[in-house]
């Protein structure tokens, strides 16, 4: 087999496994964990469009997640609008917001952007916690919103068992990976990388760096908001501390950075490796050793930044390529 065929075979195998998994794994608990795992992989991949490719450090993505969650939920619960529509609308709103934050800050030192996104995320949470009614919409302040589990079905993005959620988030994850792949090979991807690494040089080569970053920000916040709507429909209960938390913003960034920002597989790998760590340490040590998984996250982050600045994907990609080469040569 040639290299390309090997790669295709590998990809097919992965797809067969992930699509077939629910047929074997019938436990709702495991499916629940997997849905969240894919959700994180999706979020980190969306984050990576700005945090990785554009070379800036957004630390307030939970705000976009929250915009998505609240938009679709309010529209659905109070006006009966299909969550699918709310999802798209939330994406658009998040996108506009993302551009508004990027506009003043992308021209400045990266630190400003990082700080602005944190303040924006926290400001958003405080706002939602304080507002019961936003015009005609009831967002219910700190108490959050519940989605009554009636009218189950695809049109309402609501199901009684976990499998449909599993497949929906899986398809969303594959789609966002595909988008990332195409962007990374397109002019925009080259421009984002160039502008992130050496802005002055990029500008001299015809790159409007700030505009490219804005485009990336618009896409990233749009995609993040879609996940927010999905999460709301999946958990049927949202409140400001769960969907607009600083912890969520940082966790997304951490996972992507440890996995390897700027690469396509990095963020997914990060979620794959780190989500189980936090799930299991919460389950087994949550009572005795609280915060253990965060210590592990922090330590791993420091070590990875010092020894593998391009993340865990660096050695793994190398190993994978080595394996492909070996198989390739053997088959000749």
């Amino acid at each position, binding site marked *: 087999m040639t290299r390309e065929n090997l790669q295709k075979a590998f990809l097919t195998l992965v797809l067969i496994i992930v699509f077939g998994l629910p047929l074997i794994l019938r436990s709702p608990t495991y499916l629940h964990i997997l849905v969240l795992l894919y959700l994180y992989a999706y979020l980190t991949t969306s984050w990576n469009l700005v945090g990785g490719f554009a070379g800036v*450090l957004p630390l307030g993505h939970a705000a976009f997640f929250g915009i998505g969650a609240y938009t679709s939920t309010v529209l659905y619960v109070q006006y009966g609008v299909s969550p699918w529509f709310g999802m798209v609308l939330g994406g658009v709103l998040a996108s506009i917001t993302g551009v508004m934050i990027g506009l*003043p800050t992308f021209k400045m030192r990266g*630190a400003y952007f990082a*700080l602005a996104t*944190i303040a924006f995320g926290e*400001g958003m949470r*405080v*706002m939602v916690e*304080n507002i019961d009614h936003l015009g005609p919409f009831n967002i219910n302040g700190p108490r959050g919103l519940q989605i009554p589990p009636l009218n189950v079905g695809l049109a309402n993005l609501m199901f009684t068992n976990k499998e449909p959620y599993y497949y929906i988030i899986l398809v969303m994850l594959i789609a966002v990976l595909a988008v990332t792949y195409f962007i990374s090979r397109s002019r925009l991807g080259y421009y984002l990388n160039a502008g992130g690494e050496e802005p002055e040089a990029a500008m001299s080569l015809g790159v409007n760096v700030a505009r490219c970053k804005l485009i990336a920000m618009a896409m990233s916040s749009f995609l993040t908001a879609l996940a927010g709507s999905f999460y709301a429909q999946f958990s049927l209960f949202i409140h400001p501390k769960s969907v607009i938390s600083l912890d969520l913003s940082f966790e997304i960034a951490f996972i992507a950075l440890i996995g390897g920002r700027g690469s396509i597989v990095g963020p997914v790998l990060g979620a794959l490796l780190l989500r189980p760590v936090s799930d299991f340490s919460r389950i087994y040590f949550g009572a005795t050793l609280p915060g253990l998984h965060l210590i592990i996250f*922090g330590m791993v982050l420091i070590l990875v930044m010092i020894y593998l600045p391009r993340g865990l994907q660096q050695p793994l990609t190398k190993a994978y390529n080595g394996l492909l080469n070996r198989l390739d040569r053997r088959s000749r």
Partner: protein
Amino acid sequence: MVFILEDTINGILMGSIYGLTALGLTLIFGVLKVINFAHGSLLMVGMYVAYWAVTLSGAHPYLTLILVIPVMYLFGYYLQDIVIKPIFKAESEVREPITVIIVTTGVWYVLDNLTLLIFGPHYRTIQENPLRGKMLELGGMLISVPKLWGFSAAVLTAAAVYLFLQKTSMGRAIRATSLDREAASLMGIKQFKIYNIAFGIGTATAGIAAVTLVPFYNVFPTVGVLFDIKGFIIVVLGGLGSIGGAILGGMIIGVIESVGPQFMAATWAEGIVYGLFLLFLFVKPSGLFGVRYDW
């Protein structure tokens, strides 16, 4: 009317302590050009050191400065030397090492959660506290005594750091490095030694802030996060890298937080702080006293 004056004064006092917590942040940024996300955690460490010193020895809280300042200086010095320096070296060509920001975030997570693991989530207050609830009556207004001391500490520390940077040869070396690290190293200044020292001083000022907080503030593992976020806002308001700006920015926040609740729900006052921050970013990103950056 008296209420508002009283709130304003208490706001200024508390705000100056916020400013003191942010002082190290702005100093470290000025020299290393890096936002130290672990700064709040360093403050938290300082608070635990002070707390245990008072609890174990029964000494007056302010006496613990003798211990806290050197301990925190060394902590900051070696934190920079061991954890942060390697990344600077690896990315010496990068103009703004984002990776360093990320590592300080890792430090934040480790410190906060390690503290949680060791000391548990409890809120702690010092028992033998001569300053508890002490008030000064001034023309019908009640002014908190420990906050008054905190205010004095903030102003003195800021003045001391400022004079140190302006008048001593070490201070001048630090400023030279902050302006142009390559030129400074050509002049024989050891860049990383300066970074260590600046980090040490910044951490020590967080220690001073911690000591002034301990008599009237709860000590718990995530206490730093509150001050962290405030600190970020303060340094942007005041101008990243400006020492006077940090104190003034802190006072602005303090006044909003204490006077605001007269007119609205207390949580809204918090919202106003974020709003003000974003407004500054749009209108005057260099802050009150900051310089505009080159790009």
